[in-house]
């Protein structure tokens, strides 16, 4: 189980992230979570949205360098030690987490090279994994 993530190449200049978001608004796309990282010259902004295919098509059409990637999305219980237990499970299974960020504090995106292995590493716990359908149905009151 995985969710779809849209990654966009943006120059580190004022307004460039805004340009990306403008189209989302016009197309009625909801951002469920995002992370922006930067090298000083350029950055990669990663989005989890309710309609990833539409977002991808919109950005492509507007000439952005974009990519759709599959990432793991784990729904944590809201209690101390929960995030650490996820990362420990990855470490024990020798899975490298390339980057991670949270959607809301209890929904954490993990980018890994082998989604199936990561999923298996988490299977023993009580953690729930999320798919695109659940992302589309956000917000999930239960979790909040």
């Amino acid at each position, binding site marked *: 189980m995985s969710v779809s*993530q849209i*990654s966009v*190449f*943006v*120059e580190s200049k004022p307004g*460039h992230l805004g340009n990306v978001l403008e189209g989302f608004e016009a197309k009625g796309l909801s951002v469920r979570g995002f992370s922006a*990282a930067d*090298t000083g*010259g*350029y950055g*990669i902004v*990663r989005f989890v949205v309710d309609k990833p295919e539409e977002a991808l098509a919109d950005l*492509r059409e507007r*000439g*952005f*360098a*974009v*990519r759709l*990637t599959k990432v793991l999305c784990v729904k944590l219980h809201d209690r101390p030690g929960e995030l650490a237990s996820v990362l420990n499970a990855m470490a024990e299974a020798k899975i490298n987490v*390339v980057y991670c960020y949270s959607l809301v504090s209890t929904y954490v995106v993990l980018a890994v090279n082998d989604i199936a292995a990561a999923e298996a590493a988490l299977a023993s716990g009580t953690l729930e994994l999320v798919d695109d359908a659940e992302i589309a149905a956000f917000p999930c009151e239960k979790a909040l």
Partner: protein
Amino acid sequence: MGTPMPSPDKIDFSTLPIYKPDVECTSRERIRAIQLAKLIDQVNYTYDRVSWYRDRMDELHVRPSDIKTLDDVRKLPFTDKSALRETFPFGLFATSLDEIVEMHASSGTTGKPIVVGYTKEDMDVWSECIARLAQMAGVTAGDRVQMAFGYGMFTGGFGLHYGILRIGGMMIPAGAGNTERHIQMINDYGTTVLIATPSYAMHICEVGEKLGFDWAASSLQIGLFGGEPCPPGLKAEIEARMHITCTDNYGLTEVMGPGVSGECLAHRDQQHIAEDHFLWEVVDPDTGEPVPEGEMGELVLTPLDKRGIPVLRYRTHDLTRVTTEPCECGRTLARMDKVRSRSDDMLIIRGTNVFPSQVEDVIASIPRLAPQYRMIIDNESGLDRLTIEVEIHPDAFSDSFEDMNQFTQEVTAKLQSVLLLRPVVRLLEPNSLERTLGKAKHVDDRRRG
């Protein structure tokens, strides 16, 4: 059906026309003999008739009888564009104006234009040179050739027109502008050859695509380009989208106009020089001394049978290299690399000579980058710094900083190996650089002091 540019090993050159095989395919010895005989005549003709050259040769104590070998051409004075300006309009003419049958002029962006006049014999040479380069691209008497250059004082329009008549092709003199009418005419008249600047050909292509015109099914087969430098990626893109084969050619108004050299189908971006009409030299732009064969330098041209305005050792300021190896197309005439930069374009960065065309070549060779770039040179920190901005191709982005950093390092290393200095490479979003065809806007030199 259109024919996309075939790879040279798939072309049967024995079936392609060669306009004047007894010259174009002759031995190097015979070419040199033709050149020497004509050079001696031409120097005598020029000395006798043009006081401007007589004065300069007298100053250098060189007599026409001193020219005994082709190397003796080096004893003659160089000619710069300024000579044609100083003598405006008719000061360098070697004949009375009664013998001139056509006049052309290059647009003077600064000061007076360059005026040139052609005798009947000159027109004959000119149209033959054009006929040769048209046949190098495969044009024959059966072709219908649509002109999208402007006619007028510019040498390109009429020059190409006369050359096509010479081989018996049908000229469709549409002229510049009105793109939709051009497409309509291609469709109505079954045009097979388009003569245009590459940027206008691209425009015709795009307008056609928007109108739903099916280029793959169109009658068009060949593009003859000229009038402006053609960036390497553009020709290939036009060929792929219009389903045609494109060549370009080289020439300058000052020595004749288009037709000095033309591209055959065996070597992309190399052009056979009409050596029986033009003696070429490649010299160091700073010293004027010859460079070894095959090395890059400034092209110097001496037209060998020009009657209206003879010109000796014209400094083109165009940089190229020339090879005399025989060509797979069957021609033995020397080939010059398509001119990509002018000696005036050269930048000196930290003491190293850098040409924008070198950057252009490297960028064009990397599929993950769009064929666009900008060079920024500054010395804010005291030392010269070269920053090269490039656009990532929309499909080439990978979602990994590690990969993007590694890619940036690769681009930097490739540029460094060609430029011999390490630039700062900056990746930009797709379509963020301004699209231009000239060289000027590729370079932003902000150095002070």
